[in-house]
Every structure is written in structure tokens, then in C-alpha cells.
């Protein structure tokens, strides 16, 4: 069946095929939401599982995410026209002082693959930029840091959210090489994930998304 084929094209990272199959599903009149859920999100869910069990590595995850994003771009106008909402909105960035973005980009891709709207603020993001990006729809703020030297900027960012009185409106999740659950507890973050795939799962569980 078509959606199953689409799912496999995404898992295999076959971008052209993922686009063609999405196009033909739309032409056949399949509901955009079903294409998203049963084709793209189901595929990225499986990619995450394969990554976590050690069968997939970063390259496999990357090409699958690229195939998914291409198909999603095609689908997006139709989802908007049908009034389909993202499962939640995440504001993501690498904290002030830290220029590394590879890990953050992977998390961002996996969040999109899980059906989230992602606002990526980039790297070296000052706390006030996170504050300004929080609107009524934002449910999660995701902070990344690679260095022990820049980790404290995660706490500074959370402090800025408290000061701006938006902390209670969002869940804060953190990740990056030196970051741990203990550090998340210490600075008052709502969650920590050790890799991109579990970050997407964590975001879903914090927002009670199935």
C-alpha cells in the first residue's frame, strides 16, 4: 500500500521516491494528515527506534530526515489548508557562547519528524532571544550546549524565562555532550535527553502527545 511504501522510502532516505510517493498520495486524494501520520511520522519513529537500538547511525538518520523534510515541504500547504495543526511548537537553540550546532540540528530534524513545528534560533543564542521567541503556541524550549564551559548559559537562559514570566508556560528540555539528568534537575529544567531520537520522545511525553 502507498503509505507503507512512503514510510519505507523515508526510512531508506530515498528523497526522490519520498517526494514522488507523497505527490501521488495527494493526487489520489489521501488526506494530508494521514500522509503525515502514517507515512512521515511513522517513518521517523522507526528511524528513531533503529538509531536507539544501534542499527542506524547518524548518517542513516540524516538522510531519512532529509527525505522526510522534502516530503513535508510538499505536504505543508495542504496541511495548512486542511487546518491540521502541528502536535506542538518547539523553540530550539544552542545557548549563548556556544557555536556548535550539529547535535542541535539533529534534534531539530527529529522533532520535525515527530510532527512538531520547530523554530530554530541557531547557535550562540542569547537568553533574551529565547524569551522573545516564546509565543502562545510555544510549548517547549530546547537548549543545547557542547561544552562544560558554556553549560552554565542553560541556567542563565532558564533564569531569563523566569524573569520574563514565561517559564511556567513552557517546558524546558536540555541536551549536549556534557549534560546529564542530574544537571537538568539542578538547574530546574523539565527534562534531559541523551540523543536526538529520545529528545523527540521526551518532547512528546512532556506535551502528552501520543
Amino acid at each position, binding site marked *: 500500500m502507498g503509505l507503507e511504501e512512503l514510510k519505507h522510502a523515508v526510512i531508506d532516505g530515498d528523497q526522490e521516491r519520498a517526494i514522488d510517493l507523497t505527490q501521488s498520495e495527494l493526487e489520489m486524494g489521501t488526506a494530508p494528515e494521514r500522509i503525515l501520520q502514517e507515512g512521515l511520522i511513522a517513518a521517523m519513529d522507526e528511524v528513531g527506534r533503529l538509531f536507539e537500538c544501534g542499527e542506524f547511525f*547518524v*548518517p542513516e538518520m540524516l538522510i531519512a530526515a532529509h527525505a522526510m523534510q522534502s516530503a513535508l515541504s510538499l505536504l505543508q500547504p495542504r496541511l495548512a489548508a486542511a487546518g491540521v495543526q502541528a502536535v506542538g511548537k518547539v523553540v530550539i537553540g544552542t545557548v549563548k557562547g556556544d*557555536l556548535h550546532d*550539529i547535535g542541535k540540528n539533529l534534534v531539530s530534524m527529529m522533532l520535525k519528524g515527530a510532527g512538531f513545528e520547530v523554530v530554530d534560533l541557531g547557535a550562540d543564542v542569547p537568553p533574551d532571544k529565547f524569551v522573545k521567541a516564546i509565543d502562545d503556541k510555544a510549548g517547549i524550549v530546547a537548549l543545547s550546549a557542547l561544552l562544560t564551559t*558554556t553549560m552554565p548559559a542553560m541556567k542563565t537562559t532558564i533564569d531569563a524565562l523566569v524573569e520574563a514570566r514565561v517559564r511556567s508556560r513552557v517546558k524546558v528540555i536540555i541536551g549536549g*555532550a*556534557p549534560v546529564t539528568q542530574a544537571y537538568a534537575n539542578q538547574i530546574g529544567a523539565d527534562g534531559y535527553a541523551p540523543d536526538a531520537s529520545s529528545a523527540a520522545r521526551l518532547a512528546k511525553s512532556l506535551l502528552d502527545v501520543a
Partner: protein
Amino acid sequence: MLHTETMSPRERVIKALNHEEPDRIPIDLGGFQTGIHKKAYQALIQHLGLEETIQDLDPVQQLAIPSEAVLEKLHADIRYVTAHGPDSFQGGIELNERNGRRWYDLRDEFGVVWSMPDDQMLYMDISYHPLADAAIKDVENYPFPDGSAPSRFTGVREKALAMRQNTPYALSSGICGVTYEVCWYMRGLERWFMDMIENPAFCEALINRTAQYWVDWMTGFLEQVGDLLDIVMIGDDLAGQHGPLFSPKFYRQVVRPRQQRVIDTIKKHTPAKIWYHTCGDCSQYIPDLIEMGVDILNPVQISTRGMDPKRLKDTFGQNLVFWGGGIDSQHVLPFATPDKIREDVKKNVEIFKPGGGYVFNNVHNIQVGVPPENIVAMYEAAYEFGFYS
């Protein structure tokens, strides 16, 4: 208890690398993966009451060259012999303005540009990958640097010879032989990872060229100093904190044979031990490295799942020297008290030291923000608990 040293630093290092117990474990500081960031070094010399002008070891990682005064105080047993760029290379660091900030930009010999904002001074990250949009033909035509250019090695033998004759230390090369990583520096990591699956022929074309560069470089360098070195340091990061970064199948088919060419070249020109650096949980790759002729593993990232010190020592200690892993640099060294540092160093040293085969270092370079008290506590503990009797 007062301990007495009975060996020269070089004797000590050689014994440890041959899996025999010296008088105490050798100690390292000041390499390209066993060094110290300039800002952490500044804090250290201030703490030690020393006044120095800090010398640069590596602008990309912002590492200092520790002074002899510091190296002696911290009981460091190894000194480094490095080559330089050829006369034809007009490299250097420029200060440029972009996006409202001032950036230090460094273009290396491969055409990769590394950049760092002057308001942070932590690291240089890559801002330009010269082969980002290249096809295989472009790789073949790309003007690679000449690894064998004699001017790279001018004065290196004289310097190494003087160090060998006038100092008691073991001598190591700086980091070299970076065969795989240079590929992604030139291509961009994301594109390179995708090439592994979508365009492996591109990966092979590029890694053939980096391997040839290093074969030529090693030949030129080791013809000069191969008889004077005790250690040659090579490395390519293969693992992240959760294991291999890319599939072991790709590693064994594409990367390993090219690294083997470089290792074979080293072995042809020097009896020095081969030291290999890869971060992360590289436990899956340790049997490969041993088969390839690697003698020493660094930095031994003990906080990752597969890199438990006891398991590593029990499983691979007969065949591999561990160089690093003295303390967890991510969760303990920057944040703990000096007492806790001492306790952890004692615990790790006691696991790694039996039978030799261990050189002390923390895990990778000492980063900005590590309190100097912790650095001193770490080295004092390594010295005190490093004695064999």
C-alpha cells in the same frame, strides 16, 4: 609516604609503553589532545604565582604551550616535536568583521576556514568547507597541499636532536595522520555523512587524497626524526558518547584501509609507538585498532558506557596502552572539589597502573573554567598514587 623516582622520564615512558612497571606512571600535559586551553592555563599560572607570556600551541583549539616551569611542577614526562607549514603556504589569522562581530579567521592548508568571534575566544569552528559543493572530478583536481614539501621539516631534526641530547624527556610528535577527519572538514560533516550512503565513491576519492597527503607527510617527517621519536600521535574521531558515529561497515571498508596505509608508512620509518586518538565510546573499534598496529589509545572517555576503566584494562590491557582516562573531564574535573578529584584520580590510576601500560592524563584537553586548584589536585594525585612501590 615519601616516594623516590629511580628512572628518567624517558625510561619511565618507554617502560610503561612496553607494558612493564616503571617507578611511577608517566604523566602527560601539553599535547594537542592532552593539553590545556589558554584561558585555563592563564588561571593556572596565576594560581601557581608564575609570570609568563603564554605561547600558542594550536589556534583552533586555543591551546597553550605549557612552560618548562609548569611541566616540571606537574611532573610531565613527555615533550613535543612539531613540524610547521611549508614556505609556500601563506597562511595566518585575519581579523574580519561580519554580522556585527569581529572574527578571527584562519585558512588552513586544505582551504578550510576556521573562525572564532573575538568576544568569546573559546574555539575556532569551521566556517567554510572548500569541497561543500564538489563532485568527484573536483576532488581529483583540487590543489591539495604537498605533504612532502621539505620546507615543512626545516630545523625539526636539529630541534629534536637538541631535546634528545639535552633533556631527559620522552619525545612525541604532535597530532598528525588525521586521514578521515580532514575529509569532513573539507566537505562539511552533514554532507560527508550523507555521502557515506548516497555517494560512497566521493568519500573514497577524497579519503584517497588525504591518505596520500599523510603518507607523504609521514615519510618526510619521519625521515628527519623517526630515529629520535618515542611516540607518533595520530587520530580520527570514530565514536560519539553512545558508540560509533557512523556504521562500522563503512569504517572497515573505506576508512580503515586508508588509515592502515598511513600506519604502515609510520612503521616503515620509525620504531616509535603509535598513539591513536578517538573520543567517545570507541570500545567496538579497539580490536580493529590493535590489529592495525596501534599501540596506545587516547583519550579514553571513561564516562561513556563501553569505556569502563576496569573492563578496558581487563579486556585490552595486555595489548593496548591507555593514555588518558585519569578523571572524567565532563562531569568531575570542572565541577568537583579538589578532594573528590584526588579520590577519583586514585581510583582510576589504581585500575590502570598494574603491569604498566598506562600514561596519566585527564580525558582530552583541560577546558576553560576548570579551577586551577582542581588541575593541581589532579596532577598531584597522579604523581602520589602513580608510584609502583
